[in-house]
């Protein structure tokens, strides 16, 4: 079998075959769980697929669900490229949403072309600064970003809860006892781009963000610095690049992208903010970025897959008897990450040669003890 792969270029194996095989294996592992519940996995997956794709509205909803994953995945992937593990996308999501929503319900009567960018800018700035805290602490004190961003996630939930529940702050006084912010201004709502569905302009923004982030990483001096530091901080420093400043910047941009996911979700779908709860977005973002192997173009299929999974899962749960929980997709996701991150398993399964498989290098920067 190794001869079969001998003429396949390494990048095809690493960027295509391993992720695809990982996804297939992920579904297989989850199927075992379905069998254990006494349900029929083929039927479950059939409903999952139907729920995600088989009519226009379902497909539109899949695209809607994929929007936050695109921004979040881009953010985490950008961090990976700089050798940073941003596990705080979820907190940055809420901080961005808070700042953006505040702007979006405070403004009145301005044209959409002004209101939407204002809300986006507020979210981006807030996300940049919030994630920048972790970057700054890493650069100045060596505090590992994994720990600081986990902690900042919970701080973000509490900030959100405080602001949203406290009268006189962001709590809507006219909400009749409901805990939520005022609705955003009508002109700040992202317009629907596919009539009859919830598919909003945010999807196009996400599609634009992919080449933009690709361009930033691969075609700008900022991205060059970021990659250089991510690969080899020592050589970058010797070449006169400030590792500290690059770390803060990379963390900041990563957070800004996660924050964009938050505000786009609010402007496009929710239109107000309720108290924040752990949604698992942070972990999903890591999964999307890993599946995409930190390549911005790879984010598109990975985010679409995750969008489809989330969208199809509820339909599957409704249709199956005995019910197969929508949480099944978490098993798919966890297995997919495991297979992508441990390519040795797939290498062995497909009898690939050792040199054809690249390990997923993430935080391999010098001195990267997660708590040091």
């Amino acid at each position, binding site marked *: 079998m190794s001869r079969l792969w001998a003429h396949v270029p390494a990048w095809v194996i690493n960027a295509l075959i391993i992720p695809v095989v990982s996804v297939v294996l992920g579904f297989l592992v989850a199927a075992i769980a379905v069998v254990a519940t006494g349900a029929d996995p083929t039927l479950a997956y059939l409903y999952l697929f139907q729920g995600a794709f088989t009519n226009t509205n379902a497909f539109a909803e899949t695209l809607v669900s994929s929007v936050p994953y695109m921004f979040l995945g881009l953010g985490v992937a950008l961090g990976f490229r700089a050798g940073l593990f941003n596990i705080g996308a979820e907190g940055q999501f809420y901080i961005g949403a808070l700042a953006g929503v505040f702007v979006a319900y405070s403004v009145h009567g301005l044209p959409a072309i002004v209101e939407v960018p204002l809300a986006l800018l507020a979210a981006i700035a807030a996300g940049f600064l919030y994630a920048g805290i972790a970057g700054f602490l890493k650069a100045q004190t060596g505090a590992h970003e994994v720990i600081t961003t986990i902690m900042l996630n919970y701080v973000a939930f509490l900030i959100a809860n405080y602001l949203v529940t406290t009268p006189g702050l962001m709590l809507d006084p006219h909400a009749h006892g409901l805990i939520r912010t005022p609705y955003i201004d009508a002109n700040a709502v992202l317009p629907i781009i596919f009539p009859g569905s919830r598919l909003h302009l945010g999807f196009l923004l996400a599609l634009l963000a992919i080449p933009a982030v690709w361009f930033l990483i691969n*075609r700008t001096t900022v991205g060059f610095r970021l990659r250089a530091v991510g*690969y080899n901080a*020592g050589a970058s420093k010797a*070449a*006169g690049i400030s590792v500290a400043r690059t770390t803060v910047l990379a963390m900041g941009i990563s957070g800004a992208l996660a924050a964009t996911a938050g505000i786009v979700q609010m402007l496009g779908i929710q239109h107000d903010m309720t108290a924040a709860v752990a949604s698992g977005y942070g972990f999903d973002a890591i999964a999307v970025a890993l599946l995409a192997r930190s390549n911005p173009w790879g984010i598109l299929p990975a985010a679409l897959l995750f969008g489809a999974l989330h969208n199809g899962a509820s339909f599957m749960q409704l249709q199956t008897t005995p019910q197969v929980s929508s949480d099944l997709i978490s098993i798919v996701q966890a297995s997919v990450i495991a297979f992508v991150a441990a390519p040795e398993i797939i290498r062995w399964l497909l009898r690939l040669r050792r040199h054809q498989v690249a390990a997923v290098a993430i935080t391999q920067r010098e001195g990267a003890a997660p708590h040091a």
Partner: protein
Amino acid sequence: MENALELRGIVKTYGELRANDGVDLVVKWGQVHALLGENGAGKSTLMNVVYGLTSADAGEILFDGKPVTIHAPQDAIALGIGMVHQHFMLIPPLTVAENIILGHEITKPRGWIDVEGAAKAVSELSSRYGLDVPSRARVQELSVGVQQRVEILKALYRGARLLILDEPTAVLTPQETKGLFEIVGNLIQAGNAVIFITHKLAEVIEIADQITVMRRGKVVDSTTPKESNQADLARMMVGRPVLLRVEKQPAKPGDVRLKVEDLVVTDDRRQVAVGGVSLEVRAGEIVGIAGVEGNGQNELVEAISGLRTAKEGRVFIGGRDFTRRSTRLRLREGLSVIPADRHKEGIILELPIADNLVLEDYDRNPFARWIVRQLKAVAEYAARLIKQFDIRASGPTAAAGSLSGGNQQKVVVARELGTEPMVLVACQPTRGIDVGSIEFIHQQIVAQRDKGLAVLLVSSELDEVLSLSDRIAVIYRGRIVAVVDGAGADRDRIGLLMAGGAAA
């Protein structure tokens, strides 16, 4: 006297390099056997074979007269061979006693560590050999000299009768060295054997019973302190000049381009590594720094490049004081550095050759406009340098990691010289690369000198320093101990100075 260890025809190759090329060695009980040689002579490889850290391609090992096979350190330990590595294998936050008993713990029933028992065993051992250690102190609180004693005790605790000390004095103060020698004396008195790896001549004369000199993977000679002196040993160690002739005209030095004044630099452990160095390098000359590695060269270079802040003293580049300026500003001023460790500081293996060639200028005209990189300009520039510096690669987009070591180094050299700098600091510019690339890089350095470049060459290869330098400064323990003219420099005398021998 009986043989403790006998090695017959040990061969160990790493790719092209024959690190050990048919080495024979006999070590007797009750003797200190010094193994002398320059860096890369093959001493450490040989001892790693004996300790089971690597296995030989060919050859025999006899211990106590019997043939043995040693696959892993555990085998060596079981035989009674102990090794104190140059980089200690101690666990800093654990106590001395814990470090010593680790893996061979003294326990009460059910796995409780017998703290009292361990401390007692340690103090018994330490009093027997005069090795004074505080058994309850944490290793991280101890000086390097005491840590070394802990390492020796660790080996003895495991029943070592033959002790290998790898460059044991490299990290010690003169007082600590004296203490170590007393300990070694006690061990020998008790009938053990010690292999003492070093490149310091005075020490060899002082402590050894038998001396074996290695060079380029082979045993050059075996002698005793009585039959030889420092000058003889230095000659054996560095050998005759190899064929590293570089054609060059006499230097025509111009203005001072690089100047360091009373520079004091500390290392990572905050010990003084450079203790007041003053140097001048003029346009159109090559100043070589000769010295055994670890005598402050790295810290000196880092202070010049700005990667390390000088504690005292000043650094001038092109006549301007840059002591407190960033690396970036120094590079922009016209400083170029070929770092000693290519993979850590010179090149980014994952990035294409072209990106590596503009690593310092990626954001300047013509390689970038505002923040947008101009890849066409980068590619053109890279193609030019690849041709000019004879870099053998499939093209500018090939990853630097796909190149041979020599070509990787040429990428670094091309980047540093391609910008037509004012000052070049070249550290170990030809380490670990093929002869063809060595020649090429040497020619390039000399050619740039002739065009007015000021070059500071730092190399632990004496031959390289001798063949390139117009002036030679010898560094020892962070100080320049002599400056001599490059032409007709006395190789033996420099070798002696490098090894801490008295200046004649």
